[in-house]
Structure formats: C-alpha cells, structure tokens
C-alpha cells in the first residue's frame, strides 16, 4: 500500500474516526485505525465494537492495500507534519514521510480488525443532517446513564412515513420531539432504540450533511452521508409506553421567562440537599414562589411574577432536573403545566418554528410523612 495525501485531509479523516476509538481496551487492535487505500481515496475506520465510524478522504493512491495503525500516535504525527504526506506499508510496518521527516510505526495486519456490520442502504430513510441534529441535541441527554434498566439507556427513535420522533427518559424526566419528514419510499414504520453515544457521533459527523441515509439490519443501524458512515448496535426493545405517561389534563398552566426561571432555580439549588436537590414551587395569585429548606444547611425563597390565574398548587422537584430541561429549551419563553403534587409537570418552548413539537416532562419529588 502506498498513497500521498494532504496534511489537511489526513487530519480530517483521523479526527473523524478518533471519536470512535476506545481509550482503554483489552483488544489491542481496537486502539488502531484501519486504513484502506483504493481508487482515488483512502478509507479510515475505527470501532469500539458497539459503534463504528468510517470516513473517506481523497488521496493519490499509488498502490492499493490496507493496514491498521495506532490511532493516537498517527494523529499526533499528522498534527506535527510540515506538509503533504506519503504513507506506505511494508508488512506490518508503516512509513510516513513528509518533507525531510521520516516516521516508522508498527501496525497490525488488517485481518485482525473486526468486520463492520453489514447494513444495506438500498432501503433507507433519507433526511437532512440538521433535522437529525435537532432531534438528537434536544432529546438524547434525557436517556438514563444507570445500568439498572438497560432499555432506558437508549433513545427511542420512531420513524414513520410522515414524521419521525425521538424520546428519551431515565424514568424521572423525559424529553420528546417530533419532526415532519418527507419520506422518499414506502417504508413501514419502525421503532429503533439507539445508544446516545452513537447518536453523538452521528450528530458530530453528519449534523451538517445535506442528506443522511439511514438503514437498518437485524441488529444494527447505519447512517451515511458525505463520505462518512456510522454503524451501531441497536438496543433490544420494547421501549416503555411513554405516551401513556405524558399528561393530557394538566390544567394549571403558565408562561414564564426562561432566563428568570433558570436564575431563580439556580439560586434555590445552592441550599438544596446534595442528595435530592429538592426545591419547592408554589403557584397562586400571580406569582411563582420558589423555596427550599434543607435541615442542617439552611433555606432560601424567591418570588417570580407570572401570569397565572389557576388554582394554587405546591409541588416539589429535583432542581437539577428542572435546570437541565430548561437548558435544552430553545426559546426565551417556556410554558409550564401542572396537575397535582404527585403528577408529572411539563415544559415546552413557546413560539418556535424549528421545534414545533418539543416537550419535556419531569416527575415531582414528594415529601412523604
């Protein structure tokens, strides 16, 4: 194998793949990057066995071939090289030369590199990178990071002919967003459960692509667009019935300024318990009263004028959950809805065209006695 590549192209390719390389692994070859030269391009691939990324960059290929090279060292070298690079492999040894600089690295044969999952892109959904990015960035944060219910570690992605929806929850709070899509083919509706880590790669590598193709096999899902491919293992369902828990009769509603709300809650959170982060919210009159009281620590209170004419209500929440949800709200004003101290509250953006159907909900903290 031998090819010449510009430093920029090499760096770009390595940078794209590096995110998929595990930092610590028991399988040495996974710390390597697979380099395949063919035609007028070089394909670089990396995997942690769950998620795989491969990217194609242009190069002048003198001799086709493939080898794996230690990803981290190769990236460090690429960063320090003076100009365009000639890369060649002889057996397991990789030679890198640029200007008057010569490097030799020990690689591993390509046979040791795990095979990528086969996903057929013939039957695929087609959507735009920004749409995908919008879904992922507003929803995937809500997935659970605990290992107690593996299904909640994933993000539910529902694709149907007219729209697609993402839902994520950890059982305490939930984020849900729906976007219309122009479906190209007659595809059956499907529910996919994808790990947020893989969605993070998709967002990073394909978020600005004009078109992203999405296809699935039995156990995997593949994304491709603009020379980049991302594959990941699907999480087996079924996903809990989230629709049933989204409140439909929350009769206490108000609209508030997100910044003011966030600032007030942040202040309350300072003296909230480190363990439960519990703060209290009281609705009534035309104000939203926040308060917190933590034994052995102290108390705080704040009042925020809002337009509200419903019944009074007192309800407790984990302040961290509220702050997190507010952070993802794309608009300056948000609508809050409540029902009762033990029922879910919802937060939605107000007046935004980009995210017409975005809803977060959070379960209250109760004070049991």
């Amino acid at each position, binding site marked *: 194998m031998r090819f010449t590549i510009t430093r920029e192209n090499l760096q770009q390719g390595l940078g794209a793949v590096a995110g998929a390389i595990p930092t610590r692994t028991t399988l040495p070859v996974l710390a390597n990057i697979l380099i395949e030269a063919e035609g007028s391009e070089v394909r670089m691939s990396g995997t942690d066995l769950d998620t795989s990324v491969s990217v194609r960059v242009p190069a002048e290929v003198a001799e086709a071939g493939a080898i794996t090279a230690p990803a981290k060292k190769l990236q460090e070298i690429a960063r320090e090289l003076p100009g365009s690079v000639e890369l060649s492999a002889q057996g397991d040894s990789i030679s890198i030369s640029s200007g008057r600089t010569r490097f030799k690295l020990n690689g591993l044969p390509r046979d040791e590199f795990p095979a990528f999952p086969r996903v057929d892109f013939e039957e695929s959904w087609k959507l735009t990178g920004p749409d995908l990015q919008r879904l992922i960035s507003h929803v995937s944060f809500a997935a659970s990071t605990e290992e107690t219910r593996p299904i909640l570690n994933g993000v539910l992605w529902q694709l149907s002919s007219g729209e697609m929806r993402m839902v994520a929850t950890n059982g305490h709070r939930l984020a849900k967003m729906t976007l219309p899509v122009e479906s190209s083919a007659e595809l059956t509706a499907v529910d996919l459960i994808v790990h947020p880590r893989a969605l993070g790669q998709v967002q990073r590598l394909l978020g600005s692509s004009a078109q992203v193709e999405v296809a699935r096999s039995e156990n995997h899902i593949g994304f491709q667009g603009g020379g980049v491919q991302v594959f990941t293992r699907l999480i087996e369902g079924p996903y809990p019935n989230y629709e049933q828990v989204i409140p439909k009769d929350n009769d206490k509603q108000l609209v508030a300024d997100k910044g003011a709300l966030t600032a007030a809650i942040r202040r309350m959170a300072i003296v909230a318990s480190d363990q439960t982060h519990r703060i209290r919210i009281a609705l009534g009159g035309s104000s939203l009263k926040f308060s917190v009281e933590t034994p052995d620590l102290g108390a705080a209170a704040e009042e925020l004028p809002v337009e509200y004419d419903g019944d009074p209500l007192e309800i407790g929440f984990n302040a961290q959950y509220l702050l997190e949800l507010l952070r993802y709200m794309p608009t300056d004003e948000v609508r809050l809805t409540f029902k009762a101290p033990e029922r879910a509250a919802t937060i939605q953006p107000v007046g935004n065209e980009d995210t017409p159907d975005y809803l977060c909900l959070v379960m209250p*903290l109760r004070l049991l006695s």
Partner: protein
Amino acid sequence: MPRRIHVLPEKLANQIAAGEVVERPASVVKELVENALDAGATRVEVVIRNGGKTEIRVSDDGHGMGKDDALMSMDRHATSKVRSEADLAAIRTLGFRGEALPSIASVSRMVLETAERDGDGTRVVVTGGQMAAVEACARRTGTTLAVRSLFFNVPARAKFLRTTAAESRAVVETVTTLALAHPGVGFVLDANGREALNLPPAAGAAERIAAVWGPETAGELIPVAHREAGVGVTGLVQRPHSSRPGSRRVYLFVNGRSFTDRSVVRAADRAYRTTIPEGVYPSLFLFLDLPDGEVDVNVHPAKAEVRFRDRPAVERAVEEGIRATLAGLESTPSIGTRAPQDGVPSFTYASPRQPPAHVREAPGTWGAGNGRAYAYGNPSTPSVPSSPGGTPGTTLPGEPQMTLFVAGAPEALKDEADAGSSIPPIVSPDLLGSAPVMWQVHSTYILVETRSGLLLVDQHSAHERVLYEELMRDFGSGSRESQRLLFPLTLRLSPAEFSVVEEVRGVLERAGFEVEPFGGRAVIVHSVPNPHPNFDAERCLREMIAELTEGSSLIDGARTQHQRIALTFACKGAIKAGQKLSQREMGELFDRLFATELPYHDIHGRPTVVQLSLTELHRRFGRSA
C-alpha cells in the same frame, strides 16, 4: 414461762454473719485483699492451698497494726474505716462494716501477724472464734493473715465447697478483679504451688489488662473518657469488630469498687447497637466515678451490688461515653502501628499511650497477625505488583533519565514538606487535608490521604452507615423526599411477602417507597427514594421485602419496625462494591459519612474504615521518622 427470745452469744452471731460474708475461699480472699488495699499496700501476695480450703494466706506491705488494734480488729463491728454516720455516706475504703475479720475467724483457724514498724510485730491466733494466743513476733511492716481449715467447725457449709479447681478459679477471678481496680498495686497469686498471677505495678488499666490477658487483648480495647452530669466514665471497651460471641469480659467498678449491674451493661450494649452483629457482646472494663452520696455501696454484705441515687443518669453517661468512643477513629482497625494520638485525653485508669498491640508482628504481614479473618490482599507476601498488559516492551526497565541538577530538592517541595509536618495530627472529621485526593481501588475501596497517614474506606459499608442514620433521622423528623416515577414499578409477591408489605406499608412509605396493592398479590410502587445515582429501586425493594419476610441476622436484632426498615434499606440500597465513583461522589460520601454518629462502623458490625498510619509506613520502609 421461759422467755422465747434471747440475745445470741457473740460466737454464734459471728458464725451467722460469716454465712453472709464468707461463702467460699474466694470471699475470704476478697475481704482480706480489700483490707490490704485499704491499708495502703503497694504489693499484695496471695497464696492458696487446695483451692483455699486448706489454707489462704494474704500478705501485704501496708501500714500494719499495733498490738491493741490487732486485738480489737477481731471484735465485731470494730473498724478503723468508719467513725460516724457521715463517714458511711462518704465511704472510700473497700471495707467498712467491721464484720469480715471476726466472721472469718469464727469459721477457721486464723493467724494474724502484723507490724506497724519493722521488727515490732504482733501475732494473734484465733481458732473457731476463740482467741488462742497473742504473742510478739518479728515482722516487716505490713500484715499477713493466714486462714486455715475454713469451715472446720461448720460442716454444713464445708460440704457446699466445690472442687479445688473451681474454688481456685473463683479466687483467681477475685484477685483479677481487685487487681484491675488497683493497677498501681503489685499482685502475686500462688495457687496450689503454681503462680497463677504475677502482676507488677502498672501505669493504668490497659497495662494491667495486658499483663493479665496478654497484649492482644489489650490491643483490641479503646479508651473511654467521658463525664456527664457528675458521672465520670473511664476505662476501656472492645473495638466492635474485635468482639466475638462468647468471649465477653465485663468488669464494672464504681469509685474503685467492683460491682455487678445488668442494666449498666445493657446501657453499654445499647451504645454498641448497629456496630456489632446480634449475639455478639463486647468486653467492657468500666470505671465509674460518682460523687459521695450518689452511690450506696452498703446494700449487700459482700458489696457485689450497689445502688445509684440517679440510675438513669449513670446509664446515660455510660451509653454516651461509649458512643463517643465508638465515634472516634481509634475504634477502627488499623494496619500495623497506629498513629500516635495526641488528641486523646488522659484519664485516671487507662494509660493513653498503651503499647501498640501489633508492634511485635513480623514485618511484611499486613495486620493479619492476630489471626483474624480480615483479608488485606495477600497477607504474607507484599509482592511487587505485576505490570498490567504484559507486552514485553513495557516491562523492560527504562533507561535512567539524566538529571540536570543533582543536589537539593526543589524549593517548592521543601516548603510543602515543612508545612505538612507542622500541622498537628487531628482526629476526624478534620483529619483530612484541605483538598484530599481520593483514589478508588477495584471500584470497591477508597483510599484517602490523611494528616497522619492513609485511610482505606469500604464504600458499601460507609454508605450503609450513612443511609441508616439518615433514614432514622428522617423517621424522627417525620418526612422523607421521594421521587415519583414515570413508569411505576409492579412487583408480584409471594403470599408471605405480600402480607409483610401490607404490615409495613406505612413505614415503607415514610422511608420513601410509595407502595399500593395492585390486585391479587401484586403491588405497584409509585415513588422511590433516590439515595445515589445508580440506585436500583426495584431490586432494592425486592431484596428488602425478601429480607423482611425471611428475617436475617441484621434485622432480627432491631427493636422497632422503623429500625428494621432502616437497616434493610441501608443494606440493600447502599452503593455496591464494584460501582465506580467520581471524585465528587467520593467526596460527598466522605462528608456524609463523617456527619454520622458512628462513622467508623457499618450496620453489620464491620469497620467502614481501616487506617494505615504514617508511623507504620515509616516503620515498614525502615525510616526512623
């Protein structure tokens, strides 16, 4: 008609009194040794033959008696110790009734030799209560009392004496008890020609205990020093994790006098609650110090029991004192030598600088030398850690880096070292430096640098203690925060489990589990507590219900339903071994652990913390710091 009632002859009266005071050889030894101690002896020698049935001889180097006193001492109610009623309320001597000598003399052949000054001695021989001879003899200052043929004239009583071995054991126990109360006095006990005890004068109770039972036993003890509402409590109690079933030793003293009292012992056991498993009782060596008039020792002829004017105050002082001791770092196990504890207050009975029990261990063993089953990795061979990965390239020794500057440490380092050494060692919770670095090993233990060395914390045990105390506190304050669930949990239960849940539903709810029947034997859980981010509520609740249904050594010792729930919740809900923790989480666990009452003990009677002192590290590396 003859009168039915008459006054008893003196000899008979003494024999009857002897029935109360003198029961067996051990009680004779007790009376005689107490007399010796009251006479200011610095060394007491006891010799018994045939378990004391043949002969008991007690010699002391006390102040002795002149001839008149020696004769007088044989009279009933003749004593040097009490003169007026007022004295009786302020008794500081061991004897005071004036009954012992005449009582013993009436049932034995007694020889009293005593001298106030060297040479001028008096010998008094009494047989069965009859004065047989009074003569001068030569003797060093002090008194020797020989009691032979005990109960020779009371055959009924003699029949009740037990075997030589049993009577000898009782005498050893008696002398031991007196020796504990008077560590400054040397004791020698010769039983049937064999030296049963040889206790040189000691600096304190700890040293005395070490002399009686060996340094290992003394090393398991931690000092108590507490004063509350006029009641002083000092002494030594066993570390919870050293306590084992059936090996308990209890010695109680009030104002230097031994006594037995079940409710004081129960108060001590209350202090240990949750730090030791059910059925295990710690050894106690407690010395109470009460003002005159607060304690009446004149209840029982043998003075085995005492009466406290304010018993609840005494019990509270004992419980609080031991509780305070168990809350200290001293109550944890340590690897090798402990750090010197400058903060420990000095007290009368126990030496604060007791010889460390493990000092004589062979180097290279990590604290497992006393035969207990704590596994600190591989106890006998602290081997070089094998390098992970194991590719040949990484194990080659690297070429040494040439240094530019050879002599002198960098200034910054020097400053740091100086600052470190100038900080006095402080006991927790300030034992950590300002920004402690914590290191989690095997996702199970947390290592923290302290000012006096290193602490190893078992994350699960530590969290158990935290959760238990926090839940008990929340039960007390009446409220608990609970996270409502988006997807309520449904649990299907066995009939037995279901009825247990029905029974404890109210308490479970106060613990944060909102549980409701859900038809059949299923229950639905609407909200759960959230003690840590990786909390598995369903598994925790399932395991709790199973434990509550089947019972366990942990919860069977609980006294209330609330305690049962708190114990099982702490055990099932705590962070598991194997759970990775972030620096922040470790820091928070530490803060919360040291906010508890007993941070060094989990709820099963295991330690939460093991310490490795800088002293021990220096010792192992051969540094003489």
